[in-house]
């Protein structure tokens, strides 16, 4: 018996040829199940339904950041000697480089804003009530990651403003007792902001944070999918208007918002391309008016009001400690808000949140006002 005969006799029965490529793929991917799931997924309709779009918008903007970020990677060079020049090259020479970088920079700011609004809307709708505590916690972690993206990405163009703002920003963790100085040193890759800081911020921005973010987004979406959309306490029993099918009804409405966002990003990029500034010079004095990105301004301003020492503890350490407590409260809110857990509107928590938001806005405005004696 020849080898060929043996092989042919041992081979399994060939499957019948598929009717078409799509059917072939359907068999293998099993997307009928997905289609079935999509057909089943619904979004409640009530007077606050509009806030459901913020989650989709945040996800869309994250995708824009990933896509534009990957394109920027093709030309960006993460070293102190080449970073600024490579971004300059992207802005001036690379076809549509200006568009990609401007969309990435504007998109980052829009992304932070939308994520913050999403979080605030979820808070006031009390969507973190059981069984959605983990959805909130993953969302809060994603908010922290988002500002981490902003902080690490800000330094990458290696310009004067970002360099000195990062120097100030990486000084903040140093205020944490015991581990602070070490943490600051690890962040900087040394005692000061240098090319080593740029390298690690680059790694954090393009590898570490995206990996964690993708994982958390996956869990977050899975939880949303599993538990469905939360109906606010005030709307329970009132959603006589029924529900909206997610696919395609809600998705099409989502897409309208996404298209508007794309148009907005394109307009901002064309009319106000993200400026590059001057190349960082570590040996020069910090220029006047150094301040971080707008979403850190409230903390930046608040730290100015802390006295040099409180009960023998440095004022900044106390400030950083309070920010830490605030972050912990935000993260663990579903476990702390007992009222919401009992399906009751938690008035005190709402008042506390309103106070925090108003204070943060006021501090941001104060930080934006020109300092006394500052050159106009």
């Amino acid at each position, binding site marked *: 018996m020849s080898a060929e005969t043996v092989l042919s006799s041992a081979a399994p029965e060939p499957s019948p040829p598929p009717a078409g490529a799509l059917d072939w793929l359907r068999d293998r991917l099993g997307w009928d199940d997905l289609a079935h799931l999509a057909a089943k997924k619904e979004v409640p309709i009530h007077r606050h339904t509009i806030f459901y779009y913020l989650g989709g918008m945040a996800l869309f903007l994250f995708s824009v950041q990933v896509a534009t970020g990957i394109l920027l990677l093709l030309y960006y060079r993460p070293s102190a000697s080449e970073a600024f020049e490579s971004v300059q090259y992207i802005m001036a020479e690379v076809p549509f480089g200006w568009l990609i970088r401007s969309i990435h920079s504007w998109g980052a700011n829009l992304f932070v804003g939308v994520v913050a609004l999403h979080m605030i809307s979820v808070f006031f709708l009390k969507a973190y009530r059981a069984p959605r505590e983990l959805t909130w916690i993953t969302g809060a972690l994603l908010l922290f990651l988002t500002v981490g993206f902003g902080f690490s990405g800000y330094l990458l163009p290696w310009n004067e403003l970002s360099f000195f703002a990062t120097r100030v920003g990486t000084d903040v963790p140093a205020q944490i007792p015991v581990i602070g100085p070490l943490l600051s040193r690890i962040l900087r890759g040394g005692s000061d902001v240098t090319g080593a800081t740029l390298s690690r911020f680059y790694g954090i921005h393009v590898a570490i944070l995206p990996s964690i973010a993708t994982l958390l987004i996956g869990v977050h979406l899975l939880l949303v999918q599993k538990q469905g959309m939360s109906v606010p306490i005030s709307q329970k029993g009132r959603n006589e208007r029924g529900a909206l099918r997610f696919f395609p009804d809600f998705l*099409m409405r989502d897409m309208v918002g996404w298209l508007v966002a794309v*148009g907005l990003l394109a307009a901002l990029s064309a009319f106000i391309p993200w400026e590059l500034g001057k190349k960082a010079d570590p040996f020069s004095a910090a220029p006047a008016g150094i301040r971080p990105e707008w979403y850190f301004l409230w903390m930046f301003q608040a730290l100015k009001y802390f006295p040099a020492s409180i009960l023998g503890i440095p004022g900044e350490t106390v400030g950083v400690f309070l920010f830490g407590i605030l972050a912990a409260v935000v993260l663990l809110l579903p476990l702390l808000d007992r009222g919401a857990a009992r399906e009751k509107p938690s008035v005190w928590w709402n008042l506390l949140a309103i106070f925090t938001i108003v204070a943060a806005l006021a501090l941001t405005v104060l930080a934006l006002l020109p300092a006394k004696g500052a050159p106009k």
Partner: protein
Amino acid sequence: MIALSALALLLAAVRPTPAAKPTAAAKPAPAATVGCVECHLALDDSRLTPPAKAFADDIHARNGFTCVFCHGGDPAALDQDVAHDRRKGFRGRIPPTEVPEVCGKCHADAALMKQFNPSLRVDQLAEYRSSGHGHALAKGDTSVAQCASCHGAHGILPVKDSRSPVSPAKIALTCNRCHGDRALMESHKLPWDVYAKYSKSVHFKAREKGDLSAPSCNSCHGNHGAVPPEVGSVANVCGTCHAVFAEQFKLSPHWEAFKEMGLPGCVTCHENHEIVEPTEEFLSNGPSGKCGACHEVGSPGAVAAAQMRNDLVRLATETRQARALVRRAAEAGMEVSRANFDLGRADDALVRARADVHLFRASAVREAAASGLTIAQSARKAGQKALEERDYRRRGLFVSLGLIGLAVVALLFKIRDVDRERSGRA
């Protein structure tokens, strides 16, 4: 009484040799001046007390020098006659004619001065003797400046101290105390409006902006040896700062010609005190023109001047226009750092071309201007290209927004259809 005796004994113990030249090895003790100062302060006399008050802050007092080193006398004596005894070297008020010698007693002593400030010059007395002031004083003219006229007599401060009348910030005003006195200057047949003219100069304006390295009176005239620069040395004096211009001027045909004509180099065109910012108009036949004074219209010199002016004006205009374009592009958010860098190079070329005017060769100016012109034209093109790119982006944006708008409208129609279909089914 016992206390007074004890004080007298103490003062006697530290009593220095009257009117003796101090030596660093035997540095005088501060207590030695107590007698003079105590009495003069107690006198409360408008002429005799202020010097004692002012001396407390004097650089000499701070270094342990006392009244007796200049005035002689016996500071330990409690009796005025004894303290002011001429046999003990007391000389009282020092006449102006003797002031330079009294100051020079220490300030011309290299060995002594080295003990206090090794970097301090010790040729001030020799310098002063060579000055216009020194010559006049030697002839007995006491209206001229001597050491105390500028430095003060009893509250002398270091030159670096901004309160000192001879500090870099105040020296011109100190000179003007006499040189702005019309009656005094007319009596010496000297101009009295030099400060007014100087205050219109580029040097004064630079100092007003805080640049104390810009020239003041002493930078050109010298300080202790102050004299007006002579005709032949003007270029050397200006050349201490404007080295390139001075070198070029010496290579130019004007160097010999000016010497023959007895014209004082740089100041022939730039003036001496009223040195205003030079412009291309210096090379014109207009009212600000300098060349027309010697070169008739149509002469080779006038033609060369016109050519140099044209080349400079062209480069300055081209650079200015290019800069305006590049700025517009930058304001629109375009990346034009390369063009900005090039404009800096064009500015450098203009500075070089302006400097080459001092060679008084039209070809040299043309050569320097030509390189700048090429750079400025390239920057201008970059600016234009950036503005075209800005317009292209905006056109592209409007097309994109149109397409996005269409897609939104299409989606809205689709949403309406789906909604109708659902409500129909319901």
